[in-house]
């Protein structure tokens, strides 16, 4: 069975949990004491991921780190509909582009959250500024998609790109990043929470969505 080395408050681990749940894949959770135990920096976990980060997924002999890579793997292997990581070259390129955005620019919102919640020594003003810059780009993109009748980041159906971007956008207020200025993002978040198989995590206000 697939093993997920998981931390409940990690938005990156949440990306993987979302995909597993949406595709209805059975998996085993191995809870890692990320805080206060810093277990992800200890030899046993460094052997699985020398970067000392979560999540890590193990499927048989395959060990994968990085949430985006794990999403690619899970969708490629288990999504019979072929919609979460589509084959078409142009579509796949767009999916990869916004998936990378989720693991890249959006992560400034994760840094702000780590600063505010767990006291990580980041430059909070800079991280919030970077997150807002990314949110502006995301909000504009979603609005343009909507004008074309497309509800999702890379087309008319949700893909791993939406999963890669959802967690740290929806958790942004944990890091003092308000989304008042981003109405298109708010609409997209609400649509996302209606995807069959959606699960929440602490800090995601699922019950306020309506």
């Amino acid at each position, binding site marked *: 069975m697939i093993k997920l080395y998981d931390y409940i408050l990690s938005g990156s681990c949440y990306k993987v949990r979302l995909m597993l749940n949406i595709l209805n894949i059975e998996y085993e959770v191995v809870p890692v004491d990320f805080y*206060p135990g810093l277990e992800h920096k200890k030899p046993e976990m460094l052997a699985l991921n020398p970067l000392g980060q979560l999540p890590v997924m193990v499927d048989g002999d395959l060990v994968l780190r990085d949430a985006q890579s794990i999403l690619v793997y899970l969708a490629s292997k288990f999504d019979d509909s072929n919609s979460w990581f589509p084959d078409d070259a142009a579509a796949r390129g767009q999916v990869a582009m916004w998936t990378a955005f989720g693991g890249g620019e959006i992560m400034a919102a994760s840094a702000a959250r780590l600063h505010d919640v767990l*006291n990580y020594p980041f430059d909070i003003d800079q991280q919030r500024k970077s997150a807002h810059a990314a949110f502006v780009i995301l909000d504009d993109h979603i609005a343009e998609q909507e004008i074309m009748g497309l509800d999702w980041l890379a087309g008319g159906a949700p893909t791993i790109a939406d999963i890669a971007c959802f967690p740290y956008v929806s958790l942004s207020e944990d890091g003092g990043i308000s989304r008042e200025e981003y109405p298109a993002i708010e609409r997209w978040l609400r649509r996302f929470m209606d995807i069959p198989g959606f699960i929440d995590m602490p*800090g995601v206000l699922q019950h306020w969505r309506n």
Partner: protein
Amino acid sequence: MTQIDSTTLNQWYVIQSSAALTPSQPRKTRLLGRDILAVRQEDGQATAWEVSTKGEQGQALPVRECYDYVWTTLGEPDGDIFSMPEFYEDGRRMVVCGIATVQTSPGRIIENFLDMSHFPFVHTDVLGAEPDTEVNNYKVNLRKDVNELWATECGFYQPKAMASATEGIEVDYQYRVANPFAAILYKTCPDRADAMDLVGILPQPLDETNCDIHYFMLVFDDVNSDQELIQFQQGILMQDRVILENQRPRELPLQRGAEITIRADAASIQYRRWIKEMGVGFGTL
């Protein structure tokens, strides 16, 4: 900052867990608006002192180590750190869950901890679920001999009361507010019908509207690893954090009629009255 009232000043506060304070990991932090530094000396002793605005070492502070935590005070406490005999019971596990930084007052944190009515809405499918939103008519007592506030007979249906719970149970709750800024929850242990598990929150007020919450579980649990217990409790606290940071004002209002209350808020009403009578001004309006 305005003068800090003597009740607030004369409390013991947790400033770090014993395990996290090592000679190589001092903790630079704040307490009641003042900069302090906690240092574990090479001989193992925990020490702490104030740090001046220029960054110079100031007055040494009294330090105690108790319940796997490092405590200090900026005042002159009347007594010792509150008693928690369960800490010494055989078979119980003390699980220190870390620190959560929350932008609110310590009073708001204690009050939220006492409030059961938010369970179905904030901790959905864990500590509560709709439609079982009824809060029993529980009792609130001020135990004058020890000056502690207790809420008892708090029964509540919970889908997943503790990390070790596999099915929903009717949970018996007791709340103990051991001092204005320390609270312990005693709840039915899913593993042992005759015992209660403890969950404690010990806010360290950084200033009037910022706290580092130290929190722990003290449980009988042969099933779950520490990792599982910690993640369970951290998840709950993060759900509370969202609510706490959205409350306005961040200070706890103590004047009559400041916020509309209902029967389920009996513990909250008594808590506010109790700390007002003790003269707590810090973090309140």
